[in-house]
């Protein structure tokens, strides 16, 4: 793998059975993403965007093909090895924030650090730094229910970056937000990409959100379209 390429997929295919239906979610996908790239993956619902994101994050295994992330063939790892690898190298941002409701913002951000060897004081310090970075230094002791949607998503981003991962993966990060909050989140992601050099892959079907990325690729019916090409019925 070239020094610059951090994600490389070859012939990546994912099929699964839902009830009695055989579904091809990804078909023979070839993809290369370079370090520091900010890629927006677009496409209609059910096109396979999230499936590709899950395979990159080692949250699932491909049916066929290879995927190499940061030089590791993640699909060949054991479950426990995959979990450690995810904790160390991947930050994941969900559409619905997925914060733990019984934990404060600070405790939510500290959560991934519990899997490291850091002492409690160091963990709290790192979590506080991440929260300050996303502009929530004054909301550390607030519970998710006491935060707005935009603030919740910024806590989720702080949680994603607290371990200083190489890659940040975002699955429709603005899907549940109003326009103003969405812009704050997108600005934050652009800052993480430009100022901190994070490689970001963002799944979205919002063209406005996609324009914050440096590259845009489309997926349609499980196939990754060539750069610059859109699905025929894409408006």
């Amino acid at each position, binding site marked *: 793998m070239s020094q610059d390429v951090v994600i490389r997929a070859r012939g990546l295919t994912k099929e699964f059975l839902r009830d009695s239906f055989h579904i091809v979610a990804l078909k023979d996908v070839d993809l290369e993403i370079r370090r520091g790239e900010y890629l927006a993956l677009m496409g209609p619902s059910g096109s396979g965007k999230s499936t590709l994101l899950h395979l990159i994050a080692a949250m*699932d295994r491909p049916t066929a093909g290879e995927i190499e992330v940061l030089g590791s063939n993640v699909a060949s790892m054991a479950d426990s090895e995959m979990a450690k690898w995810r904790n160390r190298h991947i930050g994941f941002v969900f559409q619905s924030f*997925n914060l733990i409701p*019984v934990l404060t913002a600070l405790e939510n951000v500290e959560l991934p650090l519990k899997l490291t060897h850091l002492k409690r004081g160091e963990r709290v310090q790192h979590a506080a730094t991440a929260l300050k970075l996303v502009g929530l230094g004054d909301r550390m002791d607030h519970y998710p229910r006491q935060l707005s949607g935009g603030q919740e998503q910024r806590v989720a981003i702080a949680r994603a970056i607290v371990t200083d991962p190489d890659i940040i993966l975002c699955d429709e990060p603005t899907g549940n937000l109003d326009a103003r909050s969405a812009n704050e989140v997108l600005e934050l992601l652009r800052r993480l990409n430009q100022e901190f050099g994070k490689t970001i892959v963002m799944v979205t079907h919002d063209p406005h959100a996609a324009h914050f990325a440096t590259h845009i690729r489309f997926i349609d019916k499980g196939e990754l379209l060539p750069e610059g090409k859109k699905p025929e019925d894409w408006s």
Partner: protein
Amino acid sequence: MKYLPLIVKNALRNRRRTLLTTSSLAISLCLLGVMMALYYALFIGGQPAKAQARRVVVRHKVSIVFPLPLYFREKIAQVPGVEEVMLWSWFGGVYKDARDQRNFFARMAADADRLFRVYQDYVIPEEQKEAFIRDPAGCVVNKALAERHGFKVGDRILIRGDIYPFDLDLTVRGIYTSTDFDDDTLWFNWKYMENMLRNSPRLMAGGFTLLARSEQDVAAISRTIDEMFANSEAPTKTESEYTFGLSFLSFLGNIKVILMSICFAVTFTVLLITANTMAMSVRERVREVGVLRTLGFGKPAIVGLIVGESALISLLGGLLGVLVAEGLCWVVRQGPAIVQQAKTLTIEGPVFAALMGVSLAVGIFSSIVPAVSAARTSIIDALRFTD
């Protein structure tokens, strides 16, 4: 330990459910605690009191309801190792209203002059002892019993006869305490029985209690007495007073099996209650399990978090149950002494450890299936899960 705050917060997530689960556990484990305390006191940890260790009871081999001839007393007295022997007889009778449980206490006739030589743990003023021995209608009562009924020296006590065809009209001549345990007993002078049953074939002993010279003599004395009367008109069964006390329980059935059955039933029920709660609790959090696994938590950590939460709730319930059980033991200790062990009933160390062990086991076994099931759900399925 670094997961403990998360476990505690998860346990308190649904406070009403946690409170109800903890309460149901506490009530069940309280019942289990009392049963285990009884079992332990009766069959495992119970020891005869210091003075009692030398006392031996002789009764009819077939049943305690069959009397023994009076002349046995002198023959028993001649057995090597016997320091003193007294006869006794259970009078029964009714004091005031028999429906009131507080009016139930032992009414026993005994050799007045020998009683305090056999029961050396009894403490009574010398003049009261002498007055009791002198008065054929005299009686002595245990202090706790006297306080419960307001008996004072000089009071008259009327007992209506039911087993015997006469009533007792007794005068309290003394109030005794014991250095071992309060036995809730009224002892009256055997002369009263002799006067009422003069020339009657019913003038027989209910049994004999003897004091051995030493604890080591008890087994040999018991063997010798039973062999001596083996071919007599009334074969005997001789055993330590402690064992004799336990034999009363056999009237209620096989106590061991009854206690064990209740313990198993309670444990199984509490296991089902907790398993149901944990299954509901985990089902509500499948999506969170997906999030935790995305963050890098492995399957063992997920299982540990869920099982830890269940164990915490169970241990809390168990601890509350033990406290309530100890309270119930206190109530039992205040009641009438049907068996000696009831007067000292408490949650002993081994019983406490066993109860905590049961609580922990219930916590683990009730949650292990939902925990493993949640941990084994694929991350994608867990994140898609909607209840």
